[in-house]
């Protein structure tokens, strides 16, 4: 039974991480319907940026964290400006392919500068953040990441539902030409969503780095994990991303705990296909409204 609970806790916390990593992805999808294949690389860039600031430049943690967030915000903005803006109005598949190209560009650059070895952050989270529940121990990182996940979920939910910029973003995703005809600054919307996505991604990247260590291949592959997570939840649902993440996290830990560790990496996809066959728009996605 203790094994079960430990798996449960592990699964929940890994799942929350997946969900958190997926937030930025959903952000971009919601505003521009683009599947961002470079998301894993955005995570990695955040993690490495933080590493450079903390380990090499030895800045205080809090300062480094803020600089990383600001830096990735600018990066997201720049990526949109340089690469995606010329494609506004083109068919989606080109934009998606472009993010595939970006993914290998970023990955190549990261490998060039940092190599493929595992690196780690110095220990910095206070031990007092840990939670001891009977025999079950929850390390501080998980507590911190749950807190962050919860806060961002709330912020994003409010942002999209009530703020003008959030509504503009959704309108652009819905019908770009119509949004343009009403004077929505489509370019600004895209730039903003990429910037926010990169910001959230780098934050998740840092958390991933604290838990698993920082490795280009490792973190990039999390970027692919994001797909089953968001699809499971429904591509455009932010709450769905978190729940999808938790489902996938639990599935993975329980499969590797009780059945076989090698099945761990495919089980999310098998479940994904099954769920999609039953609910074609994921668990919480909006059904497509089609009028012919």
């Amino acid at each position, binding site marked *: 039974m203790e094994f079960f609970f430990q798996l449960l806790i592990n699964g929940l916390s890994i799942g929350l991480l997946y969900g958190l990593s997926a937030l930025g992805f959903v952000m971009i999808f919601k505003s521009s319907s683009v599947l961002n294949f470079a998301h894993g690389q955005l995570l990695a860039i955040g993690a490495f940026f933080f590493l450079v600031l903390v380990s090499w430049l030895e800045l205080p943690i809090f300062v480094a964290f803020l600089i990383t967030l600001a830096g990735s915000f600018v990066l997201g903005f720049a990526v949109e400006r340089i690469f995606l803006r010329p494609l506004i109005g083109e068919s989606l598949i*080109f934009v998606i*392919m472009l993010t*595939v190209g970006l993914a290998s560009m970023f990955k190549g650059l990261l*490998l*060039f500068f940092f190599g493929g070895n595992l690196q780690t952050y110095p220990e910095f989270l206070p031990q007092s953040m840990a939670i001891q529940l009977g025999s079950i121990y929850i390390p501080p990182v998980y507590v911190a990441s749950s807190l962050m996940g919860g806060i961002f979920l709330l912020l994003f939910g409010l942002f999209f539902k009530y703020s003008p910029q959030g509504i503009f973003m959704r309108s652009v995703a819905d019908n770009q030409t119509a949004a343009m005809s009403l004077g929505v600054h489509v370019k600004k919307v895209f730039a903003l969503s990429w910037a926010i996505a990169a910001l959230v991604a780098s934050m998740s990247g840092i958390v991933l780095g604290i838990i698993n260590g920082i490795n280009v291949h490792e973190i990039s592959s999390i970027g692919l994990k994001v797909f089953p997570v968001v699809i499971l939840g429904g591509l455009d649902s932010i709450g769905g991303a978190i729940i999808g993440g938790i489902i996938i996290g639990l599935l993975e830990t329980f499969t590797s705990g009780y059945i076989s560790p090698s099945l761990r990496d495919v089980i999310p996809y*098998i479940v994904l296909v099954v769920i999609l066959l039953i609910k*074609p728009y994921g668990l919480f996605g909006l059904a497509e409204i089609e009028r*012919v």
Partner: protein
Amino acid sequence: MKRLTFHPCGNYKEHYGQELAIFETDFGRMWAIIGIALLFGAVPFISSPYFLYVLNMTGIAAIAALGLNILIGFTGQISLGHGAFFGVGAYAGAILATTVGLPFWAAVPAAGIVTALVGMVFGIPSGRLKGLYLTIATLAGQFIIEYILVHWDSLTKGTMGIMLPAASLFGFEVNTDLRFFYVIFVSLTCVTLVASNLMRTRYGRAFIAIRDNDRAAEGMGIPIFFYKLLSFGISSFYAGFAGALWAYYMRAISTEPFTLGLSVEYIAMVIIGGLGSIPGSIFGAVFITGLNESLRFVTDAMMNFPALSGFGLNMASLREFAFGLAIVLFILIEPKGLAEVWRIIRSTFRLWPFSY
């Protein structure tokens, strides 16, 4: 009715046969025949063995890319599992050749059929899923197939890989690059013809109707699920056929190459070549294979310089960077692909000096 020799300066077609013709003018047909004659008669004899190898790889890639273009470009279903289907083809070919003992001429098409069946199984979600959701379902297919290839030890020998017997056709050993060149390019010519003819039949028109508006197509009485499955089947047949050829050409296969990266490469070929364009698929295959080979060439060259070899080690990662950069630049500069570039060049010549 005399066929036209030159492009008319307007639409003067009088019956559907003219609309459907592959070659609009006799000139077009003549150039195509000259091109094929040069390809088979001259190219193999003036190219070095290495170049011949590159050509062969391009030919194989072109077959698979053609298949993917039928699915993405003509039917509008984006698949991220083409690399895995290519792998299924390679393994099917290898297993049919070793365990079952089929000869070369039978094993390759049979591998295509096996792959087509597998592809149709993974195409089943297309009955309910659309757009990006389907894309992700095929991504799941990619990972599931990869897993099966590695873990179904009794059939695929897992990570050990399989060695294939030498191919032989009509009593000839197909064992040199040159002989493979003929096998591959005759196959490519055939499948290209099949593909371009397919698009002129009711099946092709149904595919295009589904791509443009599947609801409307359904309303016209096209059974869209059947046609989507068929499109998955045909596209996977091409992938499997190419995979089996590749397995024979390599003589030894393992599970490593058939990753998501390969699937992405095929999609890159189709997009860079031109969606929904048959020659485009071939252009795309030439471009991506050429890019890969030239990047490898540069890396190898740097490794051979002692002074640069340390740097050359890092170059491996820069290769990935350059690959991404090439795709990005291409999409930014000409998103409609090489086929569009080709069309613009041709019509510029044709219409010069008045652009409209």
